């Protein structure tokens, strides 16, 4: 997990005035979270190149944020804003990929380039995550990996906090079902 930025609001204001170092600090603090959100969202659509595609989406998220940072308002948390952009772009990617007929799963994995070295854990994650609905996956990734508070997750996914909690509980239940069987067979 990357280190959070101290006094983020001031850093954002400096970045809005064109301070590249300030924007770089924001990018360092948030890029992993944005990457995860994009990665798990496109997992079923990108096959073996999910990491590459997620990295491209992450870059586009920050380019858009860089362009529009002057319009950012302190009422919204910066991370929520970024997560929302990431979800939108990742959803667009999924829609476009589905439209092109490059559908998810093993067929896409086979058809595309071989997974890279840093994709070694992909099959385990992918298989477990496939059990979840899109919303459950989004909510779970934001909470479990990105450590976002429920309220922020609600803002990013445009759900109520109680809906977020319901998605989260269901996601945990499903994952435990999938993983429990998997790890019981492999590890013990």
């Amino acid at each position: 997990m990357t280190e959070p930025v101290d006094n983020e609001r001031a850093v954002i204001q400096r970045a809005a005035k064109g301070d590249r170092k300030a924007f770089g600090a924001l990018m360092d603090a948030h890029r992993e979270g944005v990457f995860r959100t994009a990665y798990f969202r496109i997992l079923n659509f990108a096959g073996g190149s999910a990491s590459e595609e997620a990295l491209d989406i992450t870059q586009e998220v920050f380019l858009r944020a860089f362009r529009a940072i002057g319009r950012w308002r302190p009422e919204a948390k910066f991370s929520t804003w970024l997560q929302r952009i990431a979800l939108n772009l990742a959803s667009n990617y999924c829609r476009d990929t589905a439209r092109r007929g490059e559908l998810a799963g093993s067929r896409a994995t086979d058809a595309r380039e071989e997974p890279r070295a840093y994709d070694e854990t992909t099959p385990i994650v992918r298989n477990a995550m496939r059990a979840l609905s899109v919303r459950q996956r989004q909510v779970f990734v934001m909470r479990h990996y990105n450590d976002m508070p429920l309220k922020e997750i609600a803002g990013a996914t445009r759900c109520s906090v109680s809906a977020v909690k319901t998605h989260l509980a269901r996601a945990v239940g499903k994952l435990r079902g999938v993983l429990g069987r998997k790890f019981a067979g492999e590890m013990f």
Partner: protein
Amino acid sequence: MACEERYDYLISLRAAGALESSEAAALDRHVAECADCAEELKAALEDMQLFRAIDAPLPDRARWEKFDRKFWEKADGQKRADPVSRRKFSTRRIACAVAAAAVIVLAVAALWQALSGKVPAKAGNEMTQTARAVPAPGEVRKAPSSPAQPDRENRRAERMKTIRAAAEKGYLNTCLAAMAAQKDAIVYAVTESWLPSAGKDGDE
């Protein structure tokens, strides 16, 4: 089991670290008394630890450095491209163009008005009124209705006199040239039927 549904939900939330304090207190009270739920909670927390270990394949440092380089290249490219697009499509630019067009239209209208000596919208009415006001041959001319325009009325009367004289003598070209200078005379000439009689003779 009666406790299953409600406490499964709370156990899952606890495992995800999303339990609120009131719910946490209720769960703690329950697991203190229910061995099954206590066991389930322990298993759920262990499962989530396993899950944390299989995070997304985050890029390593070298890839993030490459990411940064590529990002700033693109961001700088955007910055260079932006002023051009702003110049092409900005609201300010469009507003300036509209304002310039409006100034040109107003200038042309003012020039036309100055040259013709009247407001375009009223021209038709004035022409008719003026034509009616043109005195018949030999008739004594009335004083101008507006004291602000005596010179103009006098000049118009002079021109009408010239037209009438040319028409009476049959000098068609002279008559038409004079009428072109005085548009009101066309209405007058048509209504008074001077043109046919003038056209008979010609002025070669």
